[in-house]
């Protein structure tokens, strides 16, 4: 009878490891700590005040791991098809002879544990044991809708984070349910492989298989090494072959504090961390958390140097602000309410908003656009509805908030709107706090801006009409339709009109091909005049409004074609088809040109004029922008 069950398959199709393994591996031990503690908080018993979690780093003998010989038989039969997979398989196979093995256990107390172990792989959603043990990417819903939304996980794939930190992608778990029934399970993630002339699926389950109904059932927790003991209700995760770089005690302590400081300060959870190898231990509750964030062994807490890890600041802000501000942020169709704990502190070099789920786990250090280097710190917490909405914007490992994580266009728009409103709101709050706190700035006299606006407005009104020649005698004034999305604030409006009066060239980033030392820009249409005559065309480029242009003596001009969709194409004009020669206005100098570029055109008095002699009567019906390249040391 086998200890590990791999499903038999007809042929091998996929020869790569599950992609989530890599993405969780990159998150390091923090990813694993987050996923498991989050699950523990979600599984809290209603009758208990707080969840307790015990994390232990230790060693086991190889022989204490059930089914390990079988595991290595399967590992040995894997065959990689690309370099990365081959390297990883070799690495896994190299672990076979090790005898003293690193192991991490994460055990929770005052929690529900998994239920329905006896039913094995039942496929019923109330049997949480079955879905935890035997399904990938499955997340069982809680009967109570509100707790469901505020629960941490939503991608249902977090449990693979336990496999990801094991050298051989192996994890076990022990469960004790409400009736005191104790079972063990586990899983290993390999690639599809052939063992003893049989093809197997990538995932193996530490389980027995019922010969009649072909379902998997867990083993009862009898006769295993004491590392598998789980005597009180709850779940214990056992990760053997823990990668060496993840056995760092300090990193684990920091991962706990960084992510769950709100849950700890709210006294929803206490976490004990024991390192048996180095004989260290720490008990993290509200009181000791305050000491840890002050301890330089764990955290940089000299304020002017805090630029990456903000936990000491968040803890301080969350503790010191007694009455959080209620803020409302709208999306397109909803209003979300948050509690904002906000602190202005001149010593801080950078500002972040720690966005936290109502269950107490931090999601992200949110950067407020354009306000990244402002002296503040904040913690933002919503309720179940807000959690649900934030969840849609999170990535798989719950560490990033972005509308790009949503594929549906409408919801994406909605999320973008929300994020931009959140940014605006935060910007205003930060601005207000800075004005409040800077004493000497005084009030700005803005009356002159208003009167200037008045005069520029009437000027602009007359300018925003254009002459339309109806026939040779009469001329009409036609209103130019300028697209304006919404009325702007008056002050911004005056800046806006200034810009349209004096259009600046659009600078282009140099492409790799372009030589260093050249600068390229697209000229505004107002700086170009093009006249078509019967046998030639004249183009006049006016550089007068361009900063630094007085020093220029030569430029290359590229004809950029704009297609019907508004896309620009740099190699689509056909100058050699349309023109026989290109010269300066007097015709004394011929310029070199290819299909889309004219080279070394003279600039005199800030003007370039070129004369293009037509080739027969080719009619050109393309629309152009003009790209100008100059040597940048001239600028």
């Amino acid at each position, binding site marked *: 009878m086998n200890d590990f069950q791999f499903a038999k398959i007809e042929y091998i199709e996929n020869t790569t490891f599950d992609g989530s393994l890599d993405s969780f591996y990159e998150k390091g031990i923090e990813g694993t700590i987050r996923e498991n503690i989050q699950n523990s908080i979600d599984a809290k018993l209603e009758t208990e005040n707080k969840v307790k979690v015990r994390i232990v780093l230790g060693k086991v003998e190889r022989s204490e791991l059930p089914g390990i010989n079988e595991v290595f038989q399967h590992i040995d039969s894997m065959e990689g098809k690309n370099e990365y997979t081959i390297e990883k398989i070799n690495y896994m196979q190299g672990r076979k002879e090790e005898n003293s093995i690193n192991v991490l256990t994460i055990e929770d107390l005052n929690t529900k544990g998994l239920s329905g172990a006896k039913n094995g792989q039942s496929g019923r959603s109330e049997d949480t044991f079955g879905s935890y043990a035997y399904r*990938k990417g499955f997340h069982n819903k809680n009967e109570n809708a509100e707790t469901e939304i505020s629960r941490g996980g939503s991608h249902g794939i977090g449990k693979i984070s336990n496999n990801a930190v094991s050298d051989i992608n192996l994890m076990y778990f022990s469960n004790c349910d409400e009736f005191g029934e104790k079972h063990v399970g586990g899983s290993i993630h390999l690639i599809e492989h052939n063992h003893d002339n049989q093809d197997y699926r990538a995932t193996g389950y530490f389980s027995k298989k019922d010969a009649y109904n072909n379902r998997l059932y867990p083993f009862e927790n009898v006769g295993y090494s004491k590392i598998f003991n789980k005597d009180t209700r709850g779940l214990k995760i056992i990760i053997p072959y823990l990668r060496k770089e993840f056995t760092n005690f300090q990193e684990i302590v920091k991962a706990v504090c960084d992510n769950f400081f709100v849950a700890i300060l709210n006294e929803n959870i206490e976490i004990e961390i024991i390192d048996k190898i180095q004989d260290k231990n720490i008990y993290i509750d509200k009181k000791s958390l305050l000491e840890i964030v002050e301890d330089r062994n764990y955290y940089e807490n000299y304020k002017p140097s805090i630029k990456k890890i903000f936990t000491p600041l968040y803890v301080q802000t969350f503790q010191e602000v007694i009455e959080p501000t209620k803020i409302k942020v709208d999306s397109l169709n909803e209003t979300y309410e948050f509690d904002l704990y906000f602190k202005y502190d001149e010593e801080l070099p950078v500002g972040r908003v720690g966005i936290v789920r109502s269950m107490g786990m931090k999601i992200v250090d949110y950067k407020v656009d354009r306000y990244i280097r402002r002296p503040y710190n904040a913690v933002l917490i919503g309720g179940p509805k807000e959690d649900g909405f934030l969840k849609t914007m999170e990535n798989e490992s719950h560490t990033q908030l972005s509308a790009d*994580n949503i594929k549906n266009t409408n919801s994406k728009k909605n999320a973008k709107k929300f994020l931009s409103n959140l940014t605006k709101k935060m910007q205003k709050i930060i601005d207000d706090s800075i004005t409040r706190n800077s004493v000497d700035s005084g009030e700005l006299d803005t009356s002159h801006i208003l009167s200037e606006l008045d005069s520029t407005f009437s000027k602009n009104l007359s300018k925003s009409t254009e002459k339309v020649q109806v026939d040779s005698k009469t001329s009409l004034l036609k209103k130019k339709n300028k697209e304006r999305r919404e009325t702007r604030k008056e002050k911004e409006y005056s800046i806006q009109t200034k810009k349209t009066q004096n259009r600046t060239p659009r600078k282009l980033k140099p492409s790799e091909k372009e030589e260093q030392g050249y600068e390229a820009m697209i000229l505004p249409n107002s700086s170009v005049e093009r006249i078509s005559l019967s046998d030639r065309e004249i183009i006049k480029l006016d550089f007068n409004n361009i900063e630094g242009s007085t020093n220029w003596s030569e430029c290359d001009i590229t004809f950029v074609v704009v297609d*019907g*969709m508004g896309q620009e194409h740099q190699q689509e004009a056909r100058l050699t088809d349309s023109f026989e020669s290109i010269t300066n206005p007097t015709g004394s100098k011929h310029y070199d040109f290819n299909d889309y570029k004219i080279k070394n055109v003279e600039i005199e008095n800030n003007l370039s004029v070129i004369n293009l002699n037509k080739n027969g009567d080719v009619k050109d*019906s393309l629309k152009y922008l003009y790209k100008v390249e100059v040597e940048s040391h001239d600028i």
Partner: protein
Amino acid sequence: MNIKLLADGYKNNHYLFEDFKNNQINLDESYFSEQNIYIENAPDFPIYMGKGKESYKREEFIKAVKIIKDHYIDTPRDIHLNGKFWHSLLITSKRDYLLNKYPQIENAKEFYNIVLKKFDWENYIYKCVLAAEYISDAGLEEEKEEEYINLIYNNLDVFNYIIKYEIFRNSKFLINLLDIIKEENYSSIFKKKILNRPDLGDDERYGRRVIFELNKKYPVVLSPFMDKDDLKEQVKKALSIYYSEE
């Protein structure tokens, strides 16, 4: 019948595929929204013509366009041009049909590539929906319809480029262009690769460049709204830029 719409973010939902595969799709799961769409009748139709013999792919394409034209495109455009609607339809009511017809979708990658493929010009349903719309808008007789669907299939590469540019998305332009291709016997030339022009990229074909030239000249030359004869002039002009008999 009522089609329950998938919820936002369903493509990121990893258990949607698992549940589909294991026949455990549950309308109460979080990957469904609360919205329903009612359609009179939702017959099966082929959704993928990426593999197989040419004659088979053609039959499938014609069949799909006809069924979509007869049963689906009378819904408002925001329904039949919305990928979520089609994905919801496939997930909720076409599992057996799809698994039987495209057994490869038991593999996650193929599932996303065939069933939940992004709804744009590379998606076969999208192509068929637009083809069905244009054929229906043209108001053709029944035997003519099949002829034009055939023409679209024969010139699928050009059709792809037409629907890629929004300015060309109208029935009259498509029908005119197909007529021109037929009258001038351009079909095989349009599919040919343009050789000796490394500046154009690896896979430039005459047909694609013709469509692109028309796009470049728009709106100076309003080819999407031209009569067939004027359009033919433009097409010839565009083709002559690239084509020279040797």
